[in-house]
């Protein structure tokens, strides 16, 4: 018997809200949004950020978390950066390529879920990889009370992949906070589709050419037009949480 799944509920017992920033599509800004959301929420909440993209982990680059390592205390305690408790596969692979098969990915994620001591958090943000593969299926299967913040761009090609993730999440009745449109154009070509699905369109984030220079500098990211737009959308995200808990 694999003992790891049995302890996950305990590890998540003191985490109020888990938000998986997901998409199905790559390169739409999941990591930018996950990291920036964590940084924004950390201004007045206890926040964790968990990078689940084992092939292309990015959150550490965005946060500028270069020399960090977890500490050991009855498990692994995530290091803190800019007030965010941060866990990433890079702590174990040291930036080397990780040519993992699907079952290795599942094992890596399960191990991290079992040994990471997040302690008390208001929010744990999961930075998801693209696809509906092992990582996504494992989050659906193992992470208790996970809510989903789905990111897309206005492109037909992105929506092609995003639609598939939404199909699965809706079929499985997973809580979807809403859809965030990144690098948006006017008018939004996706709003209608989202309404047809009875999902919430949370708003849009502009294409922001100043973002690249801010990578690695958390405080700078928050002051970019991108960071400020995301901050303005926080109430919409928090509103969902309130609604969800009052439905319980």
């Amino acid at each position, binding site marked *: *018997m694999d*003992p790891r*799944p049995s302890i996950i509920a305990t590890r998540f017992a003191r985490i109020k809200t888990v938000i998986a920033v997901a998409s199905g599509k790559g390169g739409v800004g999941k990591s930018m949004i996950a990291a920036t959301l964590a940084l924004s929420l950390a201004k007045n909440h206890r926040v964790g950020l968990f990078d689940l993209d084992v092939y292309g982990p990015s959150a550490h680059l965005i946060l500028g978390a270069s020399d960090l390592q977890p500490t050991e205390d*009855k498990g692994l305690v995530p290091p803190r950066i800019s007030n965010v408790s941060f866990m990433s596969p890079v702590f174990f692979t040291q930036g080397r390529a990780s040519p*993992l098969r699907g079952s290795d990915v599942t094992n890596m994620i399960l191990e991290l879920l079992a040994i990471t001591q997040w302690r008390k958090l208001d929010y744990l943000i999961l930075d998801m990889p693209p696809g509906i593969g092992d990582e996504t299926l494992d989050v659906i299967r193992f992470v208790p009370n996970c809510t989903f913040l789905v990111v897309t761009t206005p492109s037909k090609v992105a929506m092609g992949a995003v639609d598939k993730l939404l199909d699965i999440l809706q079929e499985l009745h997973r809580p979807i906070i809403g859809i965030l449109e990144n690098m948006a154009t006017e008018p939004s070509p996706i709003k209608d589709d989202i309404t047809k699905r009875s999902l919430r369109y949370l708003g849009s984030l502009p294409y922001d050419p100043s973002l690249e220079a801010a990578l690695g500098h958390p405080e700078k990211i928050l002051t970019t037009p991108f960071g400020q737009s995301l901050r303005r959308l926080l109430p919409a995200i928090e509103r969902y949480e309130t609604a969800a808990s009052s439905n319980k």
Partner: protein
Amino acid sequence: MHEWALAESILAAAEKTATQEHLKTIKELTINLGELQQIDRGILRFALKALADEHPSFTKAKFVFKTEKSQFTCNVCAHTWDYKDLKKTLGATEAEAVHFIPEAALAYVRCVRCGSPDFQITKGRGVTLATVKGT
């Protein structure tokens, strides 16, 4: 001391089994330790005992450890090797990473015959709960 977290998971899993099999008192747990993870038996036993003491149904439990030899199988050339071969190429930092997350081996290790990174951990990966005995 991350063995403590594993001990917690072992007892949580044993509890689940105990409930399913209507066991009230646990007498013995057999725990397989995959060689790759290089678990410190002393610390694990200490953690299991400390946690068991707080648990009415586990206070009398005996903990039996078995080591499962490791095996790696190359997906390309089918060659197999084990931790002995692998250890030579791992530095202290890499070995510690593999201790926490055995799959980290895939970032550091290559097939000793053909050099491929595309291999499987076929045996002796990590911790499993083999048997739960009780009444």
